[in-house]
């Protein structure tokens, strides 16, 4: 077991999740039924995929609030393109189209961020408003319900099916996509030079530049990749709800960012892991879906989430401060002795 394991954010978050599950499960045994657990998994697929993108951006010291607008845009445009042709083919084409659109929009973000060195928050706020406004003004504001059959089939594409109490529950296939994406991002961040570059950029931009990393290429990769993942997440989302709604998704970006931050990624860059991010998403999804099971009105959802963000970011900050103070006291004592 590595040193400092028990102090790691991942461990604390996992512990919180475990405790929360026990409490909810004790109060209401429904929590531990297969149906509920499969539901939780289903609800974490899309935010999980988004969160992997956000993790990369935050690890690089930036922030992206436009990814939900990118997801809605890619998903809706894909549906808009395919529906008139009565597309009958496989689900892979919608994924490919949507991911490509997402990639292009993400690269557009990168153009502003990289060539004009603008603040990433400002750029993505601007493009969020642009992408969404453009879609609603020029492409359409009406939801599309007659999605291609492949997307409807995808919504019933289960990995396993379990029958309990005469009802059948399915574990949605989307979880495989999330797991594969998580493994890829994890390998990318830990095993490749690109990943090292992303952490380096987040740690200290100047140092990364001196060390020979091509900052511009890194940024194009990062924001393009986030857009790509957003496109994938968008298609999964509209498949799961079986409609392409242009008003969906935008507005949930801060929840995803909160999940990533709760999972231990530091908003100042340079830190964050895939495991932590997935744990953060799990925590937020459980809170958003299980308060009712505790007998707490869903009106409390945002209060709990807000309090959790403050505790989750405040406690590590305070710990770091005390540690720094103790270290400086030690140094001072050594100097005196």
């Amino acid at each position: 077991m590595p040193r400092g394991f028990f102090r790691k954010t991942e461990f604390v978050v996992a512990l919180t999740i475990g405790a929360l599950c026990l409490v909810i499960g004790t109060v209401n045994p429904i929590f531990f039924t297969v149906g509920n657990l499969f539901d939780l998994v289903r609800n974490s697929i899309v935010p999980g995929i988004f969160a992997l993108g956000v993790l990369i951006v935050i690890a690089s010291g930036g922030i992206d609030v436009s990814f939900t607008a990118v997801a809605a845009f890619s998903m809706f445009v894909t549906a808009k393109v395919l529906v008139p042709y009565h597309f009958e083919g496989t689900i892979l084409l919608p994924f490919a189209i949507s991911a490509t659109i997402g990639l292009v929009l993400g690269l557009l973000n990168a153009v502003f961020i990289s060539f004009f060195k603008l603040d990433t928050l400002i750029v993505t706020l601007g493009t969020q408003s642009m992408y969404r406004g453009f879609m609603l003004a020029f492409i359409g504001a009406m939801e599309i319900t007659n999605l291609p059959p492949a997307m409807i089939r995808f919504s019933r594409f289960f990995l396993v099916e379990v029958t309990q109490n005469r009802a059948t529950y399915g574990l949605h296939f989307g979880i495989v996509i999330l797991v594969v994406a998580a493994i890829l991002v994890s390998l990318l961040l830990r095993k490749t030079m690109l990943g090292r570059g992303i952490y380096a950029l987040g740690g200290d931009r100047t140092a990364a530049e001196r060390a020979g990393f091509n900052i511009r290429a890194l940024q194009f990769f990062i924001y393009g990749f986030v857009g790509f993942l957003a496109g994938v997440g968008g298609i999964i989302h509209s498949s799961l709800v079986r409609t392409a709604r242009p008003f969906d998704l935008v507005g949930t970006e801060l929840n995803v960012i909160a999940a990533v931050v709760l999972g231990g990624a530091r908003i100042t860059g340079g830190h964050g892991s895939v495991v932590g991010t997935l744990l953060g998403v799990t925590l937020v999804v459980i809170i958003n879906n299980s308060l009712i099971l505790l007998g707490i009105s869903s009106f409390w959802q945002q209060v709990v989430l807000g309090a959790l963000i403050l505790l989750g970011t405040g406690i590590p900050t305070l710990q770091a401060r005390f540690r720094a103070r103790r270290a400086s006291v030690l140094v001072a004592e050594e100097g005196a002795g």
Partner: protein
Amino acid sequence: MRLLAITVVVFVTMSLVRPDRFFTPDNFSSMAFQFPEFGLLAIAMMITMLTGGIDLSIVGIANLSGILAALTLTRLMPPDAAGIQVVLYSLLAVAISLVTGIACGLFNGFLIGYVGIVPILATLGTMQLYTGIAIVITQGAAVYGFPDIITFLGNGSLWIFPVPFLIFGAFALAFSLLLNKTSYGFKLYLMGTNPTAARFSGIDNTLMLLKTYMLSGLMAAVAGFVVLARTNSAKADYGSSYTLQAILIAVLGGVNPSGGFGTVLGLVLAILTLQFLSSGFNMLRFSNFFKEFIWGAVLLVVMVVNYVSNTRSNREQARRRREAERQADVARGAESSVWRPGAQD
């Protein structure tokens, strides 16, 4: 100055395109009713951005304080209240909303200044928290039905000036004076430019953060009250898109997101530009969504133009400096420009 030009160009263009509709007293009056609410929020956003921070919770504060004020007026005030009683309860409602705003702002300042959470995260958390509290209090429903004296604040006019416009004008003036004429303003700009230098020059940064976020909360509460008065109702999820708009206005008005630069005048010009644009587009029968698109585009274009002109002027300065050095070398004579200290050993 560039912004002033943009404002004038937008104004003239809109006036030329639809002189019959745009250049009319009616239109000016309706614009003067529309912009004060996000103008007030933009001031709240601006002062936190001057410290290099950001306040994502302003809309949450505005709604929460509006709801508490609304409950004072609907639950606390007896339904048969009349005359002076109504005035007193209305004053109480104003006081409650302002105190709520100050309290929320102080909590933000505490989290950022004392606990040390990054502003964007602290206010992301409190945004959820304040909105959540507002939802819990109201169970998600709107609170409505206020006395005339309150709705007058949102919909009435004094002579030709709409009351919200006057409220905004008064606060814009007050903040302009606060930033330019007081030691608080001076310290704020210094801290935003260089927090370390500010600390070593004896400024208590923590206290400054506390004061700034408190002021931001106060302004958010004022904005919340104006919304309440105009719509004659209060709800937990009003104006969720205003956060973005407030940032947009501040940045467009020349506020530097990393702190230290920005004026109230710039902010006012930015608001006017966006209001001219959106009123004009309305008249040209563009949808609201088109407006959303244009606002995002304007934000990015202005940032890019700023960046390009800054790098150009930096390059120009560097060129001039090199030129001056070269001439100084020539004046000093050839051998002194070749000589370098320590070169011979």
